[in-house]
């Protein structure tokens, strides 16, 4: 039985390699975290665009089984799974809590890409809040806190542009075997 399963796994691996050579690309897995409610529509649109570019884009509320609460499952998943990047758009108290929970975990932080509205980014905005200060700590230690503007008030890129640009480059680096 195990022999049969291992043969099956080898076949899958062979097919993966064959398609990687054919399209000269690699596939990566990203997770999109952010606020619920109306904001989830934005993440769904983003996930669709990433999928169109050959990237597996997961939204916990849509993709993870409801038998396990997302807040309980996320930390375990990010530490132990084959997820490549986790984009966290800090746009609600819930997502701010997620940031506080994950930001200094050395197993999660390297995968974490934080997005914040430009006014709350300590380097560009004027906010003096505890959360903005935490961004600075994260930038100093790990980097990867990105200021965005989805309202068209400034020259900062949109959250969508940041996520797509970083994901595509990471996918490219994966294909080259550099990550």
């Amino acid at each position, binding site marked *: 039985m195990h022999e049969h399963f291992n043969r099956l796994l080898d076949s899958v691996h062979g097919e993966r390699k064959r398609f990687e050579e054919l399209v000269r690309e690699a596939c990566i897995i990203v997770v999109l975290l952010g606020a619920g409610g109306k904001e989830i529509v934005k993440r769904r649109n983003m996930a669709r665009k990433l999928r169109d570019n050959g990237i597996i884009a997961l939204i916990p509320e849509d993709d*993870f089984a409801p038998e396990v609460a997302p807040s309980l*499952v996320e930390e375990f998943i990010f530490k132990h799974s084959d997820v490549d990047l986790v984009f966290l758009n800090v746009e609600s108290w819930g997502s701010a809590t997620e940031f506080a929970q994950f930001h200094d975990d050395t197993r999660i932080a390297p995968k974490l890409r934080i997005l914040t509205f430009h006014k709350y980014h300590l380097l560009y905005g004027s906010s003096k809040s505890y959360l903005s200060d935490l961004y600075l700590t994260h930038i100093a230690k790990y980097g990867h806190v990105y200021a965005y503007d989805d309202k068209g008030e400034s020259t900062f890129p949109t959250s969508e542009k940041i996520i797509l640009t970083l994901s595509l480059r990471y996918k490219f680096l994966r294909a080259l075997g550099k990550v």
Partner: protein
Amino acid sequence: MEEARRMLTIYSALDNDSRLKILCTIFNEPDIAFNDIARKTEMDKPALAYHLGVLKNVGLVEMEYQKRSKKLTKYRVTKEGEEILRKLNLVVEPVKPS
């Protein structure tokens, strides 16, 4: 090119022994409940939730809520998932966890 890219996404998702085991388990027992998959694969529930999410995301399995509950789900392999398994020459027999 688009089709080849899609196949790459599917085989990348499947190139993982946990996910392949889960897919085989669901294939052998359509409409199996989440908790039963966890029991049969002997997998932790958070890990199972993640791997099922990946399989669902690439269109290999579909999820349905069990009657009268939004907290209990059951899973089946999609037509595309069945085609992939046939291409791989899967023999229909239960796969035990390693």
